[in-house]
């Protein structure tokens, strides 16, 4: 460690650590001297300003680097190795399947290659029986085709369904009571469904604004309060059962 007095200038590493608020205890004495020195020193204040400006410049520059969204065709290409025998046998390991099952249940329009890749083998073998039969209801009686569904234990008396986007007009979420001990959710759609992500106390629906799916969710008696959030806005907060239009904001 360099010995620094209030008369000498701290090095760039110390100045940058000050900018980043990274004053660690091991170098506390060195930083204390720098903290006392910098406000009184035009050279150091200018250097700190320069480093801050460079940081801003870098932040803007890095933000220009495009981060692609993987197209469906690219997803299929990426998934292709897992169709080979060796890759399939890997997925037959019980622990692997169990892990993948919890990760996410997705419909046909999954956006993340990793999620899609983790899900696929589970989807093929376990998706269909994963939910209790949904009661017939209007207007949720649309044909179930390629629907995503998920069933899981509640984590408390409150449960939140969170949609990423405001979907196209006329879409509904219907929440019903069930005598079962688990929460079951299903996306109903004639075309495609949206990825469902299960988190503690939350079901996140990673839908797009053009989504045409309706949703049915069955809640055990233990769940006393339902909250529905769409694109950050809470549109329902109360006791189930409930029918919530997904294209309206409160």
């Amino acid at each position, binding site marked *: 460690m360099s010995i620094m007095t209030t008369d000498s200038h701290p090095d760039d590493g110390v100045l940058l650590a000050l900018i980043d608020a*990274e004053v660690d205890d091991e170098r506390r004495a060195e930083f204390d001297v720098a903290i006392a020195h910098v406000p009184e020193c035009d050279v150091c204040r200018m250097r700190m300003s320069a480093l801050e400006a460079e940081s801003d410049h870098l932040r803007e*520059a*890095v933000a220009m680097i495009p981060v692609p969204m993987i197209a469906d065709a690219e997803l299929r290409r990426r998934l292709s190795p897992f169709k080979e025998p060796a890759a399939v046998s890997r997925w037959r390991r019980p622990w692997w399947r169990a892990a993948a099952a919890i990760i996410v249940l997705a419909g046909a329009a999954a956006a993340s290659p990793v999620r899609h890749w983790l899900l696929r083998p589970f989807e093929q073998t376990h998706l269909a029986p994963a939910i209790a039969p949904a009661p017939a209801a209007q207007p949720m009686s649309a044909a179930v085709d390629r629907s995503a569904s998920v069933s899981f234990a509640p984590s408390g008396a409150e449960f939140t369904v969170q949609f990423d986007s405001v979907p196209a007009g006329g879409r509904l979420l219907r929440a019903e009571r069930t005598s079962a001990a688990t929460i079951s959710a299903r996306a109903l759609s004639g075309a495609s469904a949206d990825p469902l992500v299960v988190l503690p106390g939350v079901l996140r629906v990673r839908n797009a604004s053009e989504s045409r799916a309706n949703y049915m969710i069955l809640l055990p008696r233990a769940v006393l309060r339902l909250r529905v959030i769409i694109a950050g806005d809470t549109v329902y907060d109360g006791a189930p059962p409930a029918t919530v239009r997904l294209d309206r904001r409160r």
Partner: protein
Amino acid sequence: MTVKPDRISQLFTIHHDALFRYLVRLSGDADIAADAAQEAFVKLLQREPMGSGERAWLFTVGTNHVLEAKRTSARRLRLLTGRGERTMGDAPPDAHASVEADERRRVVMAALDGLSDKERVAILMREEGFSHREIAGAVGTTTGSVGTLLARTLDRLTRETTLDRDAL
């Protein structure tokens, strides 16, 4: 005992997008980045629980995968020729802006490409909000030297991107 699946689910939801973004910036190649992110989560499934350090661990594993892939591949800067790909950013409003944006991206990517692996990892991890201690762990140095490494890298990047832009 391995990391619990519900914990994996949480980590995936929280960290995947940022990890992928970081790896794209690090590698300059979306394919390599996607593979590296995938590799990180696969390894996370197989390892012992580690408490609160999963984020840094995921980024470190992803970083190592990218650096290894780069050693066996010359696909860097492919993004620069990848016009027509959908991206998370807004499209430039017109052709002139598009050309200019492409050129600025080229300058930035070239400057990043000119850094050492250590410098590039450190500066991009800082952009993702990692602490100096976490950066030190990822690049194999001491916490106290990270500030110097970052300051030197900032100077270099600023000089090269500014010079290159002025030369346009």
